[in-house]
């Protein structure tokens, strides 16, 4: 697959930053949007903006139909059994908070929740809050030397006390892909449920929630070429029916009196208030875009970029790549001897190259690694090997100047 014909579909990439052509390597933070997604947003506002599920008029009907088509597209995309298992959220963070918050009422002080050292703050803090409220204990899966999850330690942590295992599909900081299929199987054997933080997984890894058999899978639209402010929480129907609603308001009710309210059916029970209609609708365009190119083809291209970047970085004497996992999504995280990651980020930015520096919202991991932070370059389908070469060349200049 050549990235170049696709690249022209991303208007933002065709610009100069600090008088240099933009090289966008911050895709793990958010991916850029193809023209078709941007057009879908303006088309909605220009032609059929209406509130969904409520109106009897024509535009409301069109908006509702499009809105629900996205639900079906997501269902297909992750192969969920029922479309009512697809809950629209604002993003991965809200999805995890929804699951953790609603799950809290099922926890008791003897229970345990397992997370891992690789987690983003958004898959740590909601569980800390659940633990504080319920009295349950939080346990953390340690890492091996390659910075993969220590599966032997995980097996030993599981017990009948374990009620929830929450881990990511892939690490946002260092790219490690976790063996979630095995994690889920082992958790289920112990009688626990599993939530997968799919923030970094969904755009890069094939995701079949039925095959995985996960109980929850949370992800964001904006990391898969879709708009910001829309995400998905997949939950197994039986579990979503069992847990209480998250927010109260319109849409999520069946009948309201001042004495008692009965809740709406799935998925509306979890979708209180007017949803983010425009972004939900444009998310379908992003999914269609990905499906049309082919997830395998995208993954293959990104993997080639990752290998090229990894090899090039390994050739730089002062650079150390963080994490030697066998399988990574297209994220490479590194440090350079004697140079603060922030300085590398600023230096590269002066050359029009956008990377992320710092702790990447994974402070426990960065503390464990005993580094000041890392520089993270993350690739998407529109990036090229030439861009990586330009990045390496400028990184070398930076090291020469500052190292």
């Amino acid at each position, binding site marked *: 697959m050549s990235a170049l014909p696709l690249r022209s579909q991303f208007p933002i990439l065709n610009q100069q930053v600090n008088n240099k052509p933009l090289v966008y390597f911050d895709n793990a933070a958010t991916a850029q949007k193809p023209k078709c997604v941007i057009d879908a947003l303006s088309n909605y506002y220009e032609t059929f903006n209406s509130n969904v599920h409520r109106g009897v008029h024509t535009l409301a009907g069109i908006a509702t139909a499009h809105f629900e088509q996205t639900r079906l597209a997501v269902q297909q995309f992750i192969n969920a059994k029922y479309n009512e298992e697809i809950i629209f959220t604002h993003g991965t963070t809200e999805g995890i908070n929804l699951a953790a918050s609603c799950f809290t009422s099922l926890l008791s002080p003897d229970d345990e929740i397992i997370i891992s050292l690789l987690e983003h703050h958004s898959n740590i803090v909601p569980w800390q809050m659940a633990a504080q409220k319920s009295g349950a204990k939080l346990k953390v899966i340690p890492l091996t030397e390659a910075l993969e999850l220590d599966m032997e330690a995980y097996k030993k942590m599981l017990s009948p006390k374990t009620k929830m295992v929450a881990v990511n599909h892939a690490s946002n900081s260092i790219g490690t892909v976790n063996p979630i299929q095995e994690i889920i199987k082992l958790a289920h054997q112990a009688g626990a449920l599993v939530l997968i933080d799919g923030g970094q997984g969904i755009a890069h890894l094939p995701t079949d929630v039925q095959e995985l058999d996960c109980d929850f899978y949370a992800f964001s639209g904006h990391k898969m070429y879709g708009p910001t402010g829309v995400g998905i929480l997949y939950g197994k129907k039986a579990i979503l029916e069992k847990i209480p609603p998250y927010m109260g308001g319109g849409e999520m009710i069946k009948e309201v009196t001042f004495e008692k309210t009965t809740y709406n059916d799935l998925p509306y029970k979890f979708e209180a208030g007017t949803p983010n209609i425009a972004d939900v609708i444009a998310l379908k365009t992003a999914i269609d875009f990905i499906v049309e190119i082919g997830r395998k083809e995208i993954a293959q291209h990104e993997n080639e970029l990752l290998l090229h970047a990894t090899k090039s970085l390994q050739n730089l004497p002062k650079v150390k790549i963080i994490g030697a996992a066998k399988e990574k999504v297209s994220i490479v995280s590194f440090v350079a001897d004697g140079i*603060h990651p*922030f*300085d590398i980020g600023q230096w590269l930015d*002066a*050359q029009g190259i956008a990377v992320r*520096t710092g702790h990447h919202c994974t402070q426990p991991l960065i503390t464990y690694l005993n580094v*000041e932070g890392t520089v993270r370059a993350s690739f998407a389908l529109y990036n090229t090997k030439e861009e990586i070469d330009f990045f390496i060349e400028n990184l070398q200049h930076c090291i020469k*100047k*500052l190292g």
Partner: protein
Amino acid sequence: MKTDPQQEEIIQEFELLGGDAEMMITYLIELGQKMPSMNSEDKTDDILVKGCQSKVWLKVSREGDNLRFQADSNSAVTKGLVSILVRIFNRLPPEEAAEKEVYFMERSGLSRYIGTQRSNGFGAMIKQIRYYGLAYQIK
């Protein structure tokens, strides 16, 4: 707003670089290199400025009626930034340090690409300096 000779001087220095990002960052790093480093035993956690991606130590002492600032950072770029602040705020009476407006970022062109976003902690450094200014008025 009053013009400040120190900041006007800084703006002129950066204007000479013609808005070239690489030259600006190089100059910023040079400014940081020129500022004497603090002794490692002085770089204690209690004088760390909170809210920066890198570590910034900011030490204040009295010199007659005025405040004297010393600063350091483990980031070369941030050290350059804080060295400019030291230049602006050094040897001011506490009342002035607490009140002084910082405007050079916009006019020097630095804000366009260094930005004042939270990652470089620029706002946090100024806040800390002003806080010292307030605290020393009471002492």
